[in-house]
């Protein structure tokens, strides 16, 4: 990356003028505290990640998957981070930074509620008042997460405009920030948004690949042939890739949500997937130039995925750049494959993954499973690291519903759960 926050043509700072001073202030704090460890910020952060967050997370050899795919499969266990996903790495970093900056209030947006719960936890831990914006529809779909945020003392503000999902929640949080910019920090939940967010969030999440790289060398004695991570906004992806980017021999796969199909209904402004790297085009959204799902006019399309955490029309600019330059490969896995992978990992390894995470495993099956087509041209090599970005407890209700709808054949008999939990 360059210091101005661009990654090739991507990145930048496309935000209302009212926010620019705050973004400059943030950029300054990012450079001082994060990049230069002023006041011992990074030491403080790493200690809290360890003691509060539960780091380092293990790099686990997955015995039964290794057998199935006839290669060594290692799992980076971000599902074991406090809160159940990698999201805390970032939330804790940003809330702590806000504290160092003297901010007195936190706002955040959330879709599936994972970033919201992570932020709420970090705010309770650091004694910061916190308000979280969440689309009304998402609130109804993710009630346990809403409840967790409230338990942690955060306020959850329903966003009723539009479809009431993540997109609207982001806009609404930006508005709050634009109004209260002087004492408030906006904790963005992925490697998206205006500079310095994409770089800063990546830096907070890089602990994933820093650990994994050390661990794989210790445990196996060499670098992996491939690293696989799901990609929504791309924060677990960039976190899992960052330290490996200079290792040319390690291939990086970003697995997007293929949804029900890659075909786009441009007329209706609807993409039945969230594959912005695969099917999107260059544009400007939420503060950055990146790859987007948009119609011919540049209106942002509704994205779709069985996993709400991947259900976003954009993607981090740095990841888009890595893909454009060929350093990373964008692939995708559809809803059915992801659900099947969700069940497979639960059964074979005793790890119930988030539906987001399940996409990464769906890709493994796609290219190395018993039914892999000849045309599956990915060569994963002999040593693969998959990032288990989160656990699936939040997804139990969706798993029931979607498994029925799709009739996933390896799923257990769940007749008693037809009515939900």
């Amino acid at each position, binding site marked *: 990356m360059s210091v101005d926050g661009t990654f090739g043509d991507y990145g*930048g*700072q*496309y*935000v*209302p*003028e*009212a926010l*620019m*001073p*705050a973004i*400059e202030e943030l950029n300054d704090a990012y450079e001082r505290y994060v990049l230069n460890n002023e006041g011992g910020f990074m030491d403080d952060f790493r200690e809290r990640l360890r003691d509060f967050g539960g780091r380092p997370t293990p790099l686990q050899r997955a015995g039964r998957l290794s057998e199935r795919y006839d290669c060594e499969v290692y799992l980076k266990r971000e599902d074991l981070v406090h809160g159940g996903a990698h999201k805390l790495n970032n939330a804790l970093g940003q809330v702590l930074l806000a504290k160092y900056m003297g901010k007195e209030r936190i706002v955040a947006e959330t879709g599936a509620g994972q970033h919201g719960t992570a932020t709420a936890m970090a705010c309770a831990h650091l004694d910061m008042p916190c308000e979280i914006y969440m689309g009304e529809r998402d609130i109804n779909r993710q009630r346990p997460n809403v409840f967790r945020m409230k338990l942690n003392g955060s306020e959850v503000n329903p966003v009723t*405009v*539009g479809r009431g999902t993540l*997109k609207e929640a*982001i*806009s609404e949080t*930006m*508005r709050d920030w*634009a*109004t*209260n*910019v*002087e004492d408030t920090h906006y904790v963005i939940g992925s490697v998206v948004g205006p500079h310095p967010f994409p770089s800063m969030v990546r830096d907070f999440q890089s602990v994933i690949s820093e650990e994994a790289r050390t661990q794989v060398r210790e445990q196996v004695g060499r670098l992996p042939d491939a690293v696989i991570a799901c990609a929504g906004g791309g924060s677990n992806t960039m976190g899992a890739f960052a330290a490996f980017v200079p290792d040319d021999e390690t291939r990086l796969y970003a697995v997007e949500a293929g949804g029900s199909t890659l075909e786009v209904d441009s007329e209706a*402004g609807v993409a039945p997937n969230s594959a912005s790297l695969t099917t999107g085009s*260059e*544009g*400007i*959204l*939420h*503060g950055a130039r990146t790859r*987007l799902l*948009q119609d*011919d*006019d*540049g*209106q*942002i399309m509704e994205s779709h995925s069985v996993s709400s955490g991947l259900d976003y029309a954009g993607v981090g600019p740095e990841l888009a750049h890595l893909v454009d330059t060929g350093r990373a490969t964008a692939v995708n896995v559809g809803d059915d494959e992801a659900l099947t992978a969700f069940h497979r990992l639960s059964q074979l390894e005793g790890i119930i993954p988030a539906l987001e995470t399940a996409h990464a495993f769906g890709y493994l099956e796609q290219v190395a499973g018993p039914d892999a087509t000849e045309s599956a041209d990915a060569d994963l090599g002999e040593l693969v690291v998959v990032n288990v970005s989160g656990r699936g407890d939040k997804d139990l209700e969706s798993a029931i519903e979607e498994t029925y709808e799709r009739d996933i054949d390896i799923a257990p008999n769940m007749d008693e759960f037809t009515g939900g939990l």
Partner: protein
Amino acid sequence: MSLEDAFADGPAFIPYLAAGDPGYESSLAYVEALERGGADIIELGLPFSEPVAEGPTIQNAVVRSLENGMTPPRFFEFVEDLDVSVPLVCMTYYNLIYRYGDDPGPRPFVEKAAAVGIEGFVVPDLPAEEADPLREACDEFGLDLVFIVAPTTRGERLDRIMEQVSGYVYVQARLGTTGAQTSVSDQTSSSLDRLGEYDVPKAVGFGISSGDHAERIVRSGADGIIVGSALVDIVATGYEHGDDAETVADRIETLARELDEGARAGASQRPPHPERT
């Protein structure tokens, strides 16, 4: 008539409406009513699906307009179909400008805008740092590029913006997003003070809702007032109640006139300033 000229004859009244809200024909009528009400410049919104700088009022206008099929090509038709003589400023988000035409980049959009008679742009998500390509296209086709100055904009940032701005500077009256308010914020006066030294008309916007309000703003030193949400509210109410377009247009004209007169009244009460024309 260029944008700056609109400020020559007393304070400029600059109303905003979203093009196509709630429908194509009614929207034409409403925009034309603005001119009858005394508009000196009209800011015409081209709706974008993610209007992050807007409050709920304009957001809902955007939704209504989009649902009615508004697109950039339709917007240009709309401008062509409009029967107004005051200058038009297109207010939209950068992605629509960037994506228009065959090649990414702002040039095709600006070229087309110039062709249909648009005089300038306000792009709320395009800070000065990212504005070079659009600035160049505007220069090429002779359009103005209006920038917003926020209460938080100071020092170097302010200089950078003021170097790029043309037409007028949009002085954001207070922090937050668009939306009707009733009091004059302290932030407004101090922004105007900071801008005093720059030689470009200063139009204050964000939250102006009445003639009295307009009067006070101009009295504090504004060269113009920008009014959006208060007018959009009329459109929304009319839409919700199913009122006919003519009635709604009359209401718009009435509020416009009140605002325009308020602005003029404010100007007359102002101590004469040698450096202001």
